[in-house]
């Protein structure tokens, strides 16, 4: 399997996932038998493997241990794609609509952040969010001091008296917001669509096994439909997801409220084909390049991206991140 393999037909696949509001449908689908149902339909076996550490799950995918992984758009670009692994984003699941935020203690506005040291996971979407936030008030990253803080420890770190500002995502964000004196001064709701949560798979694998994409799309939209129901069944599904995430149902619901889920495949297809996604990816890409994440590349164009309708960004000869809406399209057309 993995990046080195010649395309081959296979029937068993491993998908890595980690805990995040927008990705909880996957493990729930596995638990509820939805995965098995769709996999059986296409004669496949799909294993969803939990990785507690998000970065490790992406690294494992990059190293070829997983056929697919749940990942943000920025990390998909900077880890596998920049590393030369041809990757296809086949499901654009949601965008963060407040799930990421900038918090400060002892201040009401974002400008109060000037000169503070900010705890965040460096080089992650938090870093990007901070850069975007600062640009809205005419500041840049040089106006603050960033302190790399692991996502597992950021809640406790922010609780310490030493920390006066932080950038985090949910579920940590929601706990941190609850701390005395903490205030959210910027959130991803102010930059909708720039932080996308995806399911990506190895391009060669999906080319050789299109049924995998169909099954995954089937799983995803059936699960989303179920969890969107405002009845007892929907509630039960969400409660199960909360439990899988180690959260209470209430806190999970509040996390969902700041997640814009593309539960309608048509909307997802439209978003993936829209010009905004290219604008957003260009922003993300330029930020990543400026932070040195395209190892040794001479320009931000070194890593090529492609979008539906044969549009490309960057080096068209070296496209390694492909937004592929064909499977979402099948779902939209009801052809699964």
């Amino acid at each position, binding site marked *: 399997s993995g990046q080195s393999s010649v395309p081959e037909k296979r029937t068993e696949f491993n998908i890595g996932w980690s805990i995040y509001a927008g990705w909880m449908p996957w493990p729930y689908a596995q638990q509820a038998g939805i995965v098995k149902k769709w996999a059986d339909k296409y004669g496949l076996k799909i294993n969803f*493997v939990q990785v*507690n*550490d998000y970065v490790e799950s992406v690294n494992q995918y990059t190293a070829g241990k997983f056929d697919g992984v749940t990942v943000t758009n920025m990390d998909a670009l900077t880890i596998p794609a920049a590393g030369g692994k041809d990757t296809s984003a086949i499901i654009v699941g949601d965008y963060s609509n407040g799930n990421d935020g900038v918090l400060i203690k002892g201040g009401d506005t974002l400008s109060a952040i000037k000169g503070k040291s900010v705890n965040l996971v460096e080089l992650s979407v938090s870093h990007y969010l901070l850069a975007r936030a600062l640009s809205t008030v005419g500041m840049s990253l040089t106006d603050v001091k960033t302190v790399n803080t692991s996502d597992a420890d950021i809640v406790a770190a922010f609780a310490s008296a030493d920390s006066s500002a932080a950038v985090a995502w949910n579920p940590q964000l929601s706990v941190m917001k609850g701390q005395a004196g903490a205030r959210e001064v910027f959130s991803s709701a102010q930059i909708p669509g720039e932080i996308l949560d995806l399911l990506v798979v190895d391009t060669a694998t999906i080319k050789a096994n299109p049924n995998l994409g169909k099954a995954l799309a089937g799983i995803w939209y059936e699960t989303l439909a179920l969890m969107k129901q405002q009845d007892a069944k929907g509630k039960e599904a969400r409660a199960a997801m909360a439990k899988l995430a180690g959260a209470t149902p209430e806190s999970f619901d509040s996390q969902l409220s700041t997640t814009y889920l593309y539960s309608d495949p048509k909307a997802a297809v439209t978003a993936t084909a829209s010009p905004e996604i290219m604008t957003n990816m260009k922003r993300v890409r330029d930020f990543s390049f400026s932070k040195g994440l395209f190892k040794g590349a001479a320009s931000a164009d070194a890593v090529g991206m492609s979008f539906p309708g044969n549009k490309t960004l960057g080096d068209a000869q070296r496209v390694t991140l492909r937004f592929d809406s064909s499977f979402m399209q099948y779902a939209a057309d009801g052809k699964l």
Partner: protein
Amino acid sequence: MRWVNRQPKRGDRLLLGALPIVALLILYLVLAAQRHTLNPLDKILPLPGAMVSGMSALLLQPDQLSGQIVFWADTLASLQRLGLGLAISTLIALVLGLVLGVLPPVRATLGPLVTGIAVIPPIALLPILFIALGLGETAKITLIVVGITPVMVRDIVAHVAALPREQIVKAQTLGANSWQIMIRVALPQAMPRLLQAMRLALGPAWVFLISAEAIASDVGLGYRIFLVRRYLSMDVIIPYVAWIALLAIAMDVALTQASRRGFAWAHGAAH
């Protein structure tokens, strides 16, 4: 009577030993109560009541998927990993400790390598470890083994190499070859030290277990601690840590007893 000569009696020893631990518990309660008067919602130092309710879900409700009680499932999974890791490390430490300790050429050849491995922080190489071994049990157990074995090996090597030269000479005059010296002279005398090395390795072993479970796992004491850490659920973390400490202390006592029972000659004070 000089303090160096005061040997507390068995009962007194237990009492004395309990003293500072009870004092610490009381200190915790006072601090927690203080924080709660300031902020009744404080999550950092939960009161016992909060811990009870925090734990009750994990202790009483079986998991929907597996039907198991989460707490026991975590304990079992972690103990299995720890036990396997510790067993493998001990075996390696014994074999390498004897071979390196008794045979100078082997020590010269492999000693520097062991030192090198001992000082490389395994968690820095986690990506390679997980990529080489996958995310399953193997990788977790390997992390424990890689983490604690080198220190144990070096400890046993030093102990065996420091056996009185007379004993090695004596064994040879009795006709022993290198192999026989290893199994009849070095092995039995290394055993009490090995148990002591296991005791000292218990702490680090738990650290590595928890690190491994923090990264890739879906059950285990360390997994649970890292899972709820996202919500700063100290009401679960503290009981879990206390439970880990309790398990570790039980193992420590068992190892001490094993050493006293099995190798009385090493414990009786000679004169």
